């Protein structure tokens, strides 16, 4: 996809505002760093205030330019959050799979977004730090071997590995059920290994309704699907492309 994009006539490009929210130290900045620079830093220092980054995401029929607000998770910055999500078309609410309080915080953010953000906002719930759970190594392997089924497989593994006494404190089931209830996209990711990171952003790009695109001319691919199941489907379709794109960079 990425290769052909260069030769093809320029696809319509649209910008999508995206905001990351979640408790401190769940890995918001690391997710962004992985997505934007394909890089990871151990022990990254906490974000102060907010960081603003941009990254293009190439879809089959259009290019999405993400304008990302990576906010600081500390309590004292919470009052500034409305400034960042007010005009956002999408949000990534991140929690830490190994820290139950972070899911509680994530639910607060989801509630606040549903109450105060613009009505059509696409919200993705993301459980990060998959590498700290037992299934991480297998999950990390899957994209390269079985691209199309990687995500589903990874999650099955997650379910299975739950009893093994790893660092995981929040089951995949718990996260997914909540996401389904609230109509959110749902992913479990590892910014460290890169698992599912591209997929999250691609899924969001696909989930942005066509009508919200200022310059969109082509058909929507996964238009408007906000249920977790829909996201799963989109995700599977886009997986191969995401991997290729990663290589091309």
């Amino acid at each position, binding site marked *: 996809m990425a290769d052909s994009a260069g030769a093809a006539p320029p696809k319509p490009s649209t910008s999508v505002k995206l905001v990351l929210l979640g408790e*401190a130290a769940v890995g918001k900045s690391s997710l962004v760093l992985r997505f934007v*620079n394909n890089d990871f*830093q151990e022990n990254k220092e906490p974000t102060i205030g907010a*960081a603003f980054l941009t*990254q293009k995401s190439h879809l089959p029929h259009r290019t999405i330019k993400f304008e990302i607000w990576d906010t600081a998770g500390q309590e*004292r910055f919470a009052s500034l959050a409305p*400034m960042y999500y007010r005009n956002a078309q999408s949000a990534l609410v991140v929690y830490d799979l190994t820290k139950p309080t972070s899911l509680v915080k994530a639910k607060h953010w989801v509630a606040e977004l549903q109450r105060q953000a613009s009505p059509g906002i696409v919200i993705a719930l993301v459980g990060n730090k998959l590498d700290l759970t037992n299934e991480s190594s297998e999950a990390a392997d899957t994209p390269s071997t079985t691209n199309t089924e990687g995500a589903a497989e990874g999650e099955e593994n997650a379910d299975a590995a739950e009893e093994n006494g790893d660092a995981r404190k929040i089951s995949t089931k718990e996260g997914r059920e909540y996401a389904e209830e609230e109509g959110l996209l749902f992913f479990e990711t590892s910014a460290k290994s890169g698992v599912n990171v591209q997929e999250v952003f691609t899924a969001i790009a696909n989930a942005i309704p066509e009508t919200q695109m200022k310059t969109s001319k082509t058909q929507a691919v996964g238009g408007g699907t906000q249920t977790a199941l829909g996201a799963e489907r989109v995700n599977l379709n886009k997986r191969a492309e995401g991997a290729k794109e990663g290589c091309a960079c």
Partner: protein
Amino acid sequence: MGHDSEGSAAASDEGNTATDRSIAPSPPEGHGVGSTIDETAASVGDLQIGAESSATSHVPSAIHQDEPRPPLPPRPGNLDLLQEGNYSPGSSLQRSKKSARPQLQSTATTALSRTDINTQSYQDGSRETYAASAETTPPSKPAGVFGSIRMFKGLGGSETGDSASVKSYAPTLEAGGDVESLLGEVLGASQGSPAWKLLSTQYEAPDPFDSVTYEDDEATVEFYREFDEIRAVDPDGGNEEQQLAQWQLKRKHFLILSSAGKPIYNRHGDDNLISGYIGIIQTIISFYEGANDQLKGFTAAGARFVIMSQGPLYLVAISKLGENDAQLRVQLEALYMQILSTLTLPTLTNLFANRASTDLRRPLQGTEPLLSALADTFTRGSPPTLLSALECLKIRKSQRQVINDTLLRTKCDTLLYGLVVASGRLVSVVRPRKHSLHPSDLQLIFNMLFEARGVKAGGGENWIPLCLPGFNKNGYLYMYVSFVSASESDGEEADDDRSESGKQEEIAILLISAKKESFYDLRKMRDAVVDQLDKNGSMSIIKAAVRRGRPTATDIVPGTVLRHFLYKSKGNVQFTMPSYEPHFTTMLARRRLLSLYHTLHASVHAKNARLKVHHCISRDSISLAWVTPLFELYCVAGPHPSRNALAQSANKVVQWVRREEERVFIIGGAVF
């Protein structure tokens, strides 16, 4: 101090005479000791009674009998002495000896700080000490007497003078300065004892000679481990002792706690490890607080403890690096400013007004790296902090003018301050006419951007709410930050991959506004600024200047003996210095250099010192501090050059700065 055999011979002569003479007044001296030390009273009781007969027997006799016997001359002194001894057992030893020879009291305790006297060594081995402050000690004092000085440690506080008087005392010397210098010599012999070390750190101005050798002896190996992490204590406490030992090896600690005793920040060790110490410190501080007698500092086990109480917070610095109280206080002040910068003063006050036992760690969450970056900067030694001044990037005046104009031209309405900063050095600043920028605020910003890695590592642009306490400690400002790599390869237009470089040298564009919604305005301005700077060539000038680095001392003054200097322009609150290369490349060498600067700085800034020039000689270096109403200059040369060569070089540095003034400093700056 290799060539002072003559001097020390003279010293021992003097010492002998002193000892001989001091034998004569010894009975009253013994009496003084016995009568005022409670614990030893029993054991020396015999001596006490015998010696004291004049005093103890006299008091009742004066009351009960009306005999017209004239009182003995020492009596009034002895009576005073007893009273003094009663109220303060801790200091009774010193006071008693003082009072035992009342006619000497005034001379011995003249508030002469050691900084008033300077020793000069000449190549030929002769030496002289001159009093730099003519007001307290006439410079005409006989040099021969001073020739005996080996160590300056003993000079200064009255305590030294007093305790020293036990050992030897030279009544032949008329002036306080003389007495003290001699005492210094005598004390020098015993300086190795722990008790002495304890005493010596109590002085405001530690001696450069000593601190350098002190560093030599102890710090060499350990300083490299100063910044090693101390691991957390295991749940079972198995490694606690080991971690505690490591903790105690650290040469510098900063602790911040609430007045209720809750830990807020500590540089080394985790809570479990140091909770006991926090408790002790809090107890000590509040003990004095309870007596309405605020504890400022104390010395224990070779470490100086300095305590600053700021509203609901106690900030404690513990240093074995030889800084004086004022210098440590500046560092604590900076840490406090960092906390204010995070929370603002009203928030901080409210938190504790509502609940005195507030745990401030939560609201401060995420700022530990900023506090630690500050703390480590202080531990490594920081010229900007020492001098409370800023350093600027050296470029031509006209070039700076172009950059200023660019900022002014592209300025948006919401802008308050606009700065271009290159690797911690200020390139250009624009500000409203009625607001200036406080150096301590800039220090916090520079620390956040260039010392702590958080902002830079995130990549992209940043929008940071922060309070600049020097500007207004009650509210937040909003800072837009964007980095431009200074490396050549990145010269092309870098839009999306701006953040990819991990280079040390970074140029930051800082745009500060009071409006929290103005991110996109400032972002637009930043794009315009960078675009214009690229077009008019300024960006490449800045990059080249950054890559060139600071000139070495020999670049500045060809053939100079100077290895390093600091020149602070008082009027501009800015300083300039040469590169640390080639003499101070290691962290330890730099720390030693900075320790020397701290000592020089302490000497010329001592409360009662009004000296203009302070000259120091040590085994490793000779150095000079020179203070005028316009500037402060601190120079360091190797151990061999003559004093004249050092002075000449100092003059040349001043000439160089005068010539380059508008290049090394930002004068006036751009206002709108």
